[in-house]
């Protein structure tokens, strides 16, 4: 999985998520099937559950939102454990949680098996406008540098006794952020000079190996393909 060309993986992941999103929320079996498929992929790609769990924290706000829906939504009510909840709200909450989570896990698996260079080549292969690919290349290359700068500024601030938490701190942090922008922008100018010094004429040449291994598309298509089959089956069984 780690060696599969990125653009193939991106398309497969997107197709899989599309199948998930289009599945009616009442086809409960289908979602179990999707989860099982992802588990298989995770095992084959040797991605540890801890990694997935750690990165899945991003979806907490929407899980909270989904959890509240049964209480605030309109529609007919049902009794659940002594609480009067909206039936539509329960289904909607479930819808959000299950589809959002499956989407997040699929994205995590994609990210965990793709390094940034491969990602750029993949995005380029998918006919993303070249200027966007270039901007993305620079962002990926320098995101670490800029966040390091920010971290070092925070350490320098705290080493001089600064503690966050009061309103005045906004101004200090903002001034650091302003300095960070200036440094980042000036670095961008120096990068441009370095590029021009080596003959840059407008296009960033990202060497693309070209060859997509024969079975790649086929094995990649298995994920969305199996999902689709299982989903249709589950839906048909349920109805």
């Amino acid at each position, binding site marked *: 999985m780690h060696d599969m060309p990125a653009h193939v993986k991106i398309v497969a992941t997107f197709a899989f998520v599309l199948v998930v999103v289009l599945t009616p929320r009442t086809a409960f079996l289908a979602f179990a099937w999707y989860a099982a498929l992802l588990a298989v992929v995770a095992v084959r790609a040797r991605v540890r559950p801890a990694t997935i769990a750690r990165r899945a924290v991003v979806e907490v706000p929407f899980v909270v939102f989904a959890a509240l829906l049964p209480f605030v939504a309109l529609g007919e009510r049902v009794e659940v454990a002594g609480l009067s909840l909206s039936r539509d709200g329960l289904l909607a909450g479930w819808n959000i949680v299950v589809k959002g989570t499956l989407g997040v896990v699929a994205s995590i698996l994609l990210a965990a098996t793709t390094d940034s*260079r491969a990602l750029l080549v993949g995005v380029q292969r998918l006919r993303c406008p070249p200027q966007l690919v270039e901007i993305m*290349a620079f962002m990926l290359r320098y995101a670490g540098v800029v966040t390091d700068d920010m971290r070092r500024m925070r350490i320098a601030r705290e080493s001089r006794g600064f503690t966050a938490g009061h309103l005045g701190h906004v101004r200090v942090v903002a001034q650091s952020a302003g300095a960070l922008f200036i440094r980042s922008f000036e670095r961008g100018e*120096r990068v441009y*000079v370095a590029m021009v010094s080596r*003959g840059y004429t407008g296009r960033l040449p990202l060497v693309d190996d070209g060859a997509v291994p024969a079975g790649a598309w086929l094995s990649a298509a298995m994920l969305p393909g199996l999902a689709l089959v299982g989903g249709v089956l589950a839906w048909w069984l349920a109805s």
Partner: protein
Amino acid sequence: MTSQEVAAELRPSPPTPPSLEVRDLAYAYPDGRQALFGVDLTVQRGERVAMLGANGAGKTTLVLHLNGILTAGHGTVRVAGLEVAKPHLPEIRRRVGLVFQDPDDQLFMPTVRDDVAFGPMNLGLRGAELDARVEAALAAVAMGEHADRAPHHLSFGQRRRVAMAGVLAMQPEVLVLDEPTSNLDPVARRELAEILQSLAVTVLLVTHDLPFALQLCERCVVLSDGVVVRDGPTGEVLADVEWLRRHRLELPFGFAPPADG
């Protein structure tokens, strides 16, 4: 003595044109501040010349004129006989290899191989020829086995070397290095010296590291307030401690240049 006479003195003029020929160069920044007040400099092919000077003397400004990043307000710059002017810029940029002080500014591609290939690719090389050029450049700086790594996984010294490889891959006429030893530990510094000594290309070394300049360059040029104030054998210049101090240059504590100057 003029710069040309000094150069001729130290090295008999070969039939090839000088690698660098700067005549009466003056320049002022857009905000009005004038940085160069008439610089004369000639560097013959194969020479290794150190450019010394306090901060603010104009060294980096001068260097940026050598490959046309800045355009002279007055005076001319020639690289191996070709004038630095708009129509010649692509060729000038092949001939002048500028290695900047911060390798992170220079290593902007996702992997080492991509970065070293950047220059030659812009020159039109592809396929086997490109690969060979990249391999040769990485071998020259002893970074061959790191070709597929990402820049942020390398140590600072390694990134410096890759930056140099990226420039060497263009087979330049002259290599211009801006503070190449800053932030290097002693081992990396020695390795850099060995690499530079093994190269056959003309070298212009802008540096504060006086011992390094002494070790590598037989000639040094001192810039002060936007003009060249001294141009002579490195040992001789560095032995004149009083003169150095007047121009805000000092040898490191405890360092004495070898007696034969």
